[in-house]
């Protein structure tokens, strides 16, 4: 009986901690400092609709976490996220909470990408 319990405890301890969908990017350069939740950008949703080229060439997003300085002014004037999130191609920027949906205190990073458990610095 104790043996079975030990096995169960071992298996449960191997259960992975909760983590975001692979390639979710948390952007928290300025959001939390300015009283908003950190931004969570889900790659999966966008990959279904766009090839990498659209954002990472046409819209100028650098392929590096927190490598882009994106202000609300930029977005409202149609740069970066605002190229689509303007009410035409995608929902407009008044929907603050859909982007600013991260839990408090989350540092910028790309999540779900810890599978190599190596010295990666994504």
């Amino acid at each position, binding site marked *: 009986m104790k043996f079975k319990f030990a096995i169960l405890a071992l298996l449960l301890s*191997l*259960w*992975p*901690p*909760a*983590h*975001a*969908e*692979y*390639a*979710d990017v*948390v952007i928290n350069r300025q959001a939390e400092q300015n009283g908003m*939740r950190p931004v*969570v950008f*889900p*790659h*999966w*949703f966008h*990959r*279904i*609709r*766009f*090839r*990498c*080229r*659209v954002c*990472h*060439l*046409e*819209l100028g997003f650098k*392929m*590096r*976490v927190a490598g882009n300085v994106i202000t609300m002014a930029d977005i409202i004037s149609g740069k970066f996220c605002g*190229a*689509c999130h303007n009410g035409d*191609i995608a929902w407009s920027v008044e929907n603050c*909470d*859909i982007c*600013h*949906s*991260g*839990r*408090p205190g*989350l540092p910028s990073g*790309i*999540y779900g*990408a810890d*599978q*190599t*458990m*190596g*010295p*990666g*610095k*994504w």
Partner: protein
Amino acid sequence: MGGFAMALAEAGHWLPLKEDNIHDPRSPAARVMQESGQALGELAKRAPDTAGNQVRWVRLLEENVLQPRGSLKDPNFKMQVLDRDVYLDIGGSMNVVRFPHRAHTLWLDCKNCHDHIFLPKAGGTRIEMYEILQGNQCGICHGAVAFPLTECQRCHSVKQVDFEAMYRENRLPANSAISIQPGKKPPPYFRK
């Protein structure tokens, strides 16, 4: 050990938004946003995978399950797809690497990698596994958005004996290239 358990737990399983430790479950958006499992679960019925988002993105594209657009500006834009494999053999203990331009150029523009990450010449750039693990070179995407670096065999896919035989017998694809790494000796069978 933990990684294996994670892989088992993950295959065909996507965490709900409220439990993913990233989204704030108290955020109004948590009630409104689509769950990743809803979309990816559907895609996984056609092309499941055991790593990353657990769908085979390239296969979904090639089978026309997805038709993501390649340009916002030009509605008639066609991706510049280059069908050219680059082989990398430094005589180490891992299989020879086959880099397929085709799978990459279905998603990316040439300028996404050339010239600032890789010189547009086989053997022009010294490619190092350490750099890749640090999130440079291939690691800019692999481990971040594309399949993670735990999937060794997807890049290291050609046995050295097989590669050497293909090379000697002139059976390598017509437009493939071999990367002779700068600062490293070419493989012994390689003839200039």
